[in-house]
C-alpha cells in the first residue's frame, strides 16, 4: 500500500496505521510527532492521530504543532 507524506511516496504493509507510515518516512519526524512538536495533517486539513487507519494513496503533511 502506498501513501504520501510531504509528497514522498511511502510503501507500507497492508493494514498499516499512520504510525507505521510515519516511522517509515522518518524516525526523527515520528519522534517529533510523538513528542507533540509536530502534527500530521490529512488531505482535508484535519489532524490525524498516529493510531489512525490509512487509506491507500492518501496524502499527509507534517506541520509544526500550535
Amino acid at each position, binding site marked *: *500500500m502506498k501513501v504520501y507524506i510531504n509528497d514522498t511516496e511511502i*510503501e*507500507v*504493509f*497492508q*493494514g*498499516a496505521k*499512520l*504510525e*507505521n507510515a510515519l*516511522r*517509515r518516512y*522518518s*524516525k*526523527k519526524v515520528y*519522534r517529533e510527532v510523538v*513528542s507533540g512538536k509536530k502534527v500530521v495533517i*490529512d*488531505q*482535508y486539513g*484535519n*489532524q*490525524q*492521530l*498516529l*493510531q*489512525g*487507519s490509512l*487509506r491507500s494513496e*492518501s496524502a499527509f503533511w507534517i506541520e509544526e504543532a500550535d
Partner: protein
Amino acid sequence: MLNRKIKLAGLFLIAALLITSVGLGAAEVEEEVVFLPTNDEHGVIENFDRIAWYRQQVEEEYDTVFLVSGGDVFSGNPVVDEYVIDDENLRGKPIIGLMNLAGYDALVIGNHEFDYGQDILQDRIEQAEFPMILANFDAEEAPYLEQPEPYTILETNKGFPVAFLGLVQITEAGIPSTHPGNLDGIEFFAPVDTALEYEFLRDEASIFVGLTHLGHSWDQDLAEAMGSLDLIIGGHSHSVVENPPLVNDVLVAQAGADTNYLGKIVVELGSDGQVLSRRGELISIDDIDEADPDVTAEIDYYEDQVDEIFSRELAQLDEGISGDMALGSLMTDAALTELDADFAAQNAGGIRVSELDPEITVGSVFELEPFGNELVIYEMNADDIRSLLQFSYERRSTVDLYVGGLHYEVAVNEIGLVDSIELYYPDGTPLDEDKVYQMVLSSYVADTYEYTARDEGHNTYRRHNDTIIDFIERISAEELAQYNEEDRISTTSVPGGEGTEIGRTEVGLSTEGMDRGSVSAGNLKADAVRHVLDIDFGTYPTDQLNSGVDLDSGPVYQEALEFALYGSFAYDNNVTVATVTGENLEKMFHNQNEWFGGPATQVSGLTYEVVMEDGDVVETSLFKDGEPVDPQAEYTVGFNSYVYQFYSEGVDVIDSYTTDRTELEILLDYVEEIGEFGEELAEERISIIE
C-alpha cells in the same frame, strides 16, 4: 410519511470557522437535538466521568442529547483488554460498564470489537444497555455471535425519530481489521453498498445518522453516495475534525481518538420534524473540568484492579528465563506459533527486561513487551531473510534480531560488516533457497528495518504481547524452562573486508571501555562536531555508541562509520548547538552522569572528572585547557539532537539551533577533510575518582 430532509446543498458553506453550521434559519425551531460522539476509545476509561458530566450539562441546555460512539471501544488498555477476574474472561467489561453509566445511547461495532473473539463480543453486546449496531455483515453462520441490529431508531424527547445506521470498514481482503480467526462464519459486505439498502430509513426518521467506523475519507465517499443522510458520525482514521465538512449536504464528523475529544453536533428540527440546521464543533476533553462522581468511583474501581489483572499467573517455573537469547526465542516462538507462520524475528531493543521471574504473570509479559506492537507477516525467501539479518547486524554491529523457527550464523569481516549469513532449520538442515516462507515481524521492525520481501506484507492485527500470553498459557513449565538453553545464533570472524576508504588512522577505532571513560570512536565523533561546526565543545552520548566494537588501525572505511560504531546514525539525528554558561553546562553533564551511573558523554575541547561514591555519581567537574570552566562564561556546545532534550531538561539555555546536516554527514565531512588521525583519538578526556 415523515418530513424528508430539506436539501440545502450549496446554500451555506461556512468553511474557516471553528463551528460548522448549515441550515434554513428562518423556520421556527421546535427542538434542538445534540449529538455527543466519541470514537476509537480503545479502552481509555479515565475520561468517562467528564463525558458523563458534560452530557448532563448539555441536557439542561438542549431538548435532547444522544451520546454515541463511532466504534473501536476495545483494544489499547490492559485494564480493559486483560480483564480476567477469578479466571473468568471478562475482557471489555470495564469500558462497556462505564459507557452504560455515562449514558451512551448507541455504538457502532468497529473492527476492534472483534478482537477478543465472538463469544466475548456477544457478552459485551448483552452487557451494553445501549444498542451495538452493524449493518454490513451477516453473522447467521457465526458460532458464537448473534446477528446484532443493523440500525436503531431512537426518539427525541419531543417524539421525533432518529435513525442510526451502523457500518464498519472492510479491507481489501473483505474483512474488518482484526485477526481473521475472530471472524469464523461471518460475511462482510461493502459498506456503501449496504448503506444504500437502508435508504428507506430516510422516510422513517427526522434525522438520519450514519454511525460509522469507516475512516474520514471513506465517510466522505459515503456522503457522496448517500445524500439522504443528515450526519455521519465516524471513526477509524482517528481524525480530529474540528470543522465537520458538508459533503453532498451531509455533515461528516469525527472526534479524534482515546476520548481526548468529544464532538458536539446540534441539529435544529422544525415543527414537522424537518432538519432546519446542523452545526458541529469539537470539544477537547481537557476543557471539561468537572466530572460525575459516580462514574469517577466506577473508574477508580476498575483501575484499582490493575494489580489483580497484572498479577494473574500464567506459569510457575523453578527459575526465571534470562537473557536476550532466551527471551527473544520465547517471543519469536510465541509469534510464529500463534500465527501459524514459519519464522519470526525479534529485535533486541524490543526485549525490555533482562529476566522473567519464575512466576510469569500478565504484568511480566507487559514489562517484556510493553509496546503492544502488532505483528506483520511477510513472504520471504532465504535471501530476503539474509537482507533483514544483515541490516539488523550492521546497524548495531552485533546480533540484533533473535529468531524463531530457524537458526543463523553470521560471518563478520575485519571492518565490522557482514560477510555472509548461513540459515538453518533448528535441526541443522539448511533452508531451502527457493522456498518462500512466512516471516513474522513486529510492526516496529517492519517499519524501521531495511529488507526485501516477496510481498508488501500484511497486518495480522494481533499484538505481540497477547500472543506471548497465549503461548505461555499453552505450553508446559518444562518447555518454558528450556528457553534458558536456547542457542540459535552464532557469529564468526573472517579476514579481510573492503570498503570505501575515506581516511587513515594510527589508532584503532574502538568503543571498548566506553562506560568508564573516553574511547577513540567517541573522541573522533566529538572532535568532528566541534571542528565542523566551529564551536567550543563537541559531544556524543556514550549510550549511543555500539558496544564491543574494536576496529583495527589503518584505513577508515565509510561503511564502518555508517554502520559499525554509532547507534544514533540509524535515526538520522542532527546536532543541536546550545549556548550555555559553564555552570549550566556542568549541570547538564552531571545530570546525565547521575542518570547513566558514570560518564555519559564523549567529549572534545574539554575534559571532565566524575566523582563516584558507592556506585553513584556525586560530583562532575568540567575543565577547559586544564582549568575549571568559567561558571559565568558562555560556551557553544554540540549535542546529538535527540538526546539534547535530556541534557537541557531543567537547565537554562541561552540559545540553541539544530543543524540541517545529520551527524553522519558531519562526521564524514570531518574525516575526509582531516584525512589522517593520530594519537589524539586515544586521549583520555574523562577521569573517574572513586
